[in-house]
């Protein structure tokens, strides 16, 4: 049986624990893009997202003796990324960002007749995904882009599995509401 992605990661982690810098470089090569994009979606700032990437992999190196292999490396990396990103968000006063978001949504609604065309449907949806709160962006990304299971997301966000399912449901609901406000009524919920 051929090795899985998780097997490769475990091999790399074992080598990192032994102090192998090349293994850290390989782990970085495998995961840095997804870590960066996850951080960027939460922080909406490339410099901050890049700082988080550096901090996460530097911590992998510094704390290499502590990884117990209870979760996949990608889940572990995303959990670290989330913690660092939320620390930055707290410092930036997330509420201010949300206020800006609400204002942008209203502007979009005013122009709904102009933008509502079938060819723009994807564009509208992507714009609405961008406007979700950090909590909703996070769960949407973890499910749809990072391919994480309910159990893995629960580990990453530090919440019960039931909360993860509920949060995802409300993220979808909010997304449909934003789309409707932008002139794209999908008839749900």
């Amino acid at each position, binding site marked *: 049986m051929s090795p899985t992605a998780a097997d490769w990661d475990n091999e790399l982690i074992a080598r990192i624990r032994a102090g192998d810098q090349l293994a850290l470089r390989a782990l970085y090569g495998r995961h*840095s893009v997804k870590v960066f994009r996850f951080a960027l979606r939460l922080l909406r700032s490339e410099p901050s997202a890049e700082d988080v990437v550096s901090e996460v992999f*530097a911590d992998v190196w510094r704390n290499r003796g502590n990884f117990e292999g209870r979760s996949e490396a990608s889940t572990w990396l995303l959990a670290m990324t989330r913690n660092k990103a939320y620390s930055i968000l707290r410092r930036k006063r997330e509420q201010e960002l949300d206020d800006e978001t609400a204002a942008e949504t209203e502007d979009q609604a005013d122009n709904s007749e102009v933008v509502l065309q079938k060819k723009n449907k*994807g564009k509208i949806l992507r714009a609405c*995904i961008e406007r979700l709160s950090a909590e909703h962006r996070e769960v949407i990304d973890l499910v749809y*882009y990072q391919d994480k299971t309910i159990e893995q997301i629960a580990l990453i966000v530090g919440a019960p599995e039931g909360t993860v399912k509920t949060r995802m449901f409300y993220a979808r609901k909010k997304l449909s509401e934003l789309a409707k406000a932008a002139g794209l009524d999908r008839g749900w919920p």
Partner: protein
Amino acid sequence: MTMNPNDERDEAETLLPWYAKGTLDAVNRLRVEEALSRWPELRESLRLVEEDRNETIALNEGLGAPSPEAWARIFAVTAAEQRRPTVSARLLSLVRVFGLGAEPNPTRLAWIGAAAAVVALAPSRSGATYQTATAKSKEGAEVLITFAPGARISDISAFLKERHGSIDEGPRNNWYSVRFGNRRLSTEETNALVEELRASPIVQSVQPGGGD
């Protein structure tokens, strides 16, 4: 225990995103498939979920990747760690780097702790990596410097060469410990040096070090 039909339908609705991604376990996958057969309107929900999924992927795929600088900062951490032989040497180094002299008082020790915490948290964005001296000189004047974010390695090398400077330590949270000249300077001379360094466009911040 059997769920009532409405609960069963609602539960299937909440599971649709993972079903659309193929990340459900076998039991829940079967549960969703049964619900889709039983309540055809769920198929419309599934179609919307698939739209959301496709646009989320498209959005993320358009975000690019971290620049080479991100890896350079990580490499600096691993390289710096491998240069540190012992914990006690690292602590002594911090005392030196933050200019606190050989006999730090309690206030100074607290400051060391804070500085050490900052160092542990984050390599900074200016982040270019430089080769530091393998054996520290005990001569010369020690100064702490952060270089301007846009400063190139070649600029910094020329800057140091011109002033007979060499990097003793760093970067640590953007700060480098740099030694200038080959003799200990008086306070006045050190202050004059600091003022001169401060005037350079490639220097962002500078402050006197603590000596040895």
